[in-house]
């Protein structure tokens, strides 16, 4: 099979990048890796369970603000504590929100999630004494593996220890998600996606499994959010705005939602394409809007859909 070969090459490239590429491109890999984690979770909800959330940025915001609050106000600097805290915060919010939202489908699910996302945005914006309002909150440089890396300048920290730390998180997140989609649970999600009525008749409790998928995807989004916040050192309410939610759905569609690696490809292409376009032409949204329209109309399977020789994605049990 081609996949292990491709993955190995990609893996080697990722590992060697900080040593070979200019610092600028290495720092661009950081949001890619953060969004990669977010999108792996989002696609569990979208590609595998069939639910499109227009408010998922809510959880990115929760993760990011968790990191900011912990480092700035509570003196917690260990990333190994920040990430689980972000995950926990997301789970706590996702449990009731998810329980509510998964009872609805399609457009109503999209609307409810959008509303929740905007509630959080408004809260972040208006309650400025708590959240810093539209200026946001700072996120201080976290310790990695117990060390402050004080001898490293900001850039050296980002393209060095932080890069490899993020990469490790991405790899772990990917492996975990791989297990999840290839598990009995993953198959049940797909039955819900394809035919909820039939799934129920086979004894699959549709709202409960959708809820699990929702919570897992929320946790992933928050971990990604915390990773995203560190390089900029600042978090602000726009992280939770509905257009941010729209953009991450766009990224998944771009890469290909029917494929396991599609979302990662989508994150990569989006980040790097955005950077390339912005360096020559400030109006990247115009280009990207056109790209999205093109994909929706002509290539709904995204980039992976174009590459795939078989129509099926690489997953679950095949002989």
């Amino acid at each position, binding site marked *: 099979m081609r996949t292990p070969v491709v993955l190995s090459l990609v893996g080697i490239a990722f590992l060697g990048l900080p040593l070979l590429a200019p610092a600028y491109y290495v720092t661009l890999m950081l949001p890619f890796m953060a969004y990669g984690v977010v999108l792996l979770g989002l696609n569990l909800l979208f590609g595998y369970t069939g639910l499109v959330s227009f408010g998922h940025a809510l959880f990115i915001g929760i993760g990011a603000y968790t990191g900011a609050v912990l480092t700035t106000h509570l003196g917690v600097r260990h990333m190994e504590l920040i990430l689980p805290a972000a995950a926990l915060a997301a789970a706590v919010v996702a449990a009731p929100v998810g329980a509510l939202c998964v009872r609805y489908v399609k457009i109503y699910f999209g609307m409810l999630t959008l509303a929740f996302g905007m509630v959080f945005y408004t809260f972040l914006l208006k309650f400025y004494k708590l959240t810093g309002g539209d200026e946001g909150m700072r996120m201080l440089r976290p310790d990695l593996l117990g060390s402050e890396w004080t001898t490293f300048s900001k850039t050296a920290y980002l393209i060095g220890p932080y890069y490899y730390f993020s990469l490790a998180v991405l790899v772990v997140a990917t492996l975990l998600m791989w297990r999840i989609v290839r598990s009995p649970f993953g198959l049940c999600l797909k039955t819900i996606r*394809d035919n909820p009525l039939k799934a129920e008749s086979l004894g*699959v409790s549709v709202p409960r499994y959708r809820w699990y998928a929702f919570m897992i995807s929320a946790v992933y989004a928050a971990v990604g959010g915390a990773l995203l916040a560190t390089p900029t050192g600042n978090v602000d309410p726009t992280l939770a705005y509905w257009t941010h939610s729209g953009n991450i759905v766009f990224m998944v569609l771009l890469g290909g939602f029917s494929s396991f690696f599609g979302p990662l490809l989508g994150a990569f292409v989006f980040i790097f394409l955005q950077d390339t376009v912005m360096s020559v032409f400030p109006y990247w949204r115009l280009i990207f809007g056109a790209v999205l329209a093109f994909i929706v109309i002509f290539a709904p399977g995204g980039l992976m859909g174009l590459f795939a020789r078989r129509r099926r994605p690489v997953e679950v*049990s095949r002989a």
Partner: protein
Amino acid sequence: MILEARDIRKLYGAYVALDGVSLSIREGEFVSIIGPNGAGKSTLINVLTGVLQPSAGSVRFKGKDIGGIGTVALTRLGMARSFQLVQVFAELTVLETLQAAVISRLGRGARLFASLAGDRQVQAEALEIASLFGLSDKAHALARELPQGDKKLLDVASAFALRPEIILLDEPTSGVSTADKHAIMEILVGAAKRIGLRAIIQVEHDMDIVFGYSDRIIALHQGKVLADATPAQIQADARVVDMVVGRRRH
């Protein structure tokens, strides 16, 4: 008595869909429910499968009241159903569909990190059901690419994979060519014996199929049970013949 419905009434506002329907299904029976459209068959099925709560009366499965308990709970109790309009999982293969049913039966649906491919029991059972239904050579075909007859078989096969005690088939041969109808019924009955089904209920319009396989026929008309008897008795019952053929001439 495995399934018992007592004096079921179901009203939709002022419209009476079921008006005092009573029936019982016993061990080893193959019962067909017949009746024209609008007779209340769909409503009756939905009441019998716990989807609808009856307005009055009770439904008991293995002695337990199942009124409105819902499909998922009913499946756990041991009743399964197939659908009139064939229901499959478009993007899953035949094998994956059957695996899903087996997983559900074994209660392994919440296993997040276990490998499906490595679960020998699930694999084996799914393959077994596939072969019972003659779908082994199509095991890796996508459900949406199957011909209509095979889709029907898959719909039924996945219900059988739950190893239910009783199964309710909603027009198992509808939309299938006459040539294939008997083939499907033979497969069905054979599989039922193999997995130890205790009773089969079917809703059918095709009288050849009904008379060919039923131990008992229940004729439904305008929300009431018109007749509940053996095929021979039904054939002799003028009221049922009229109902099936159409209005009495003069």
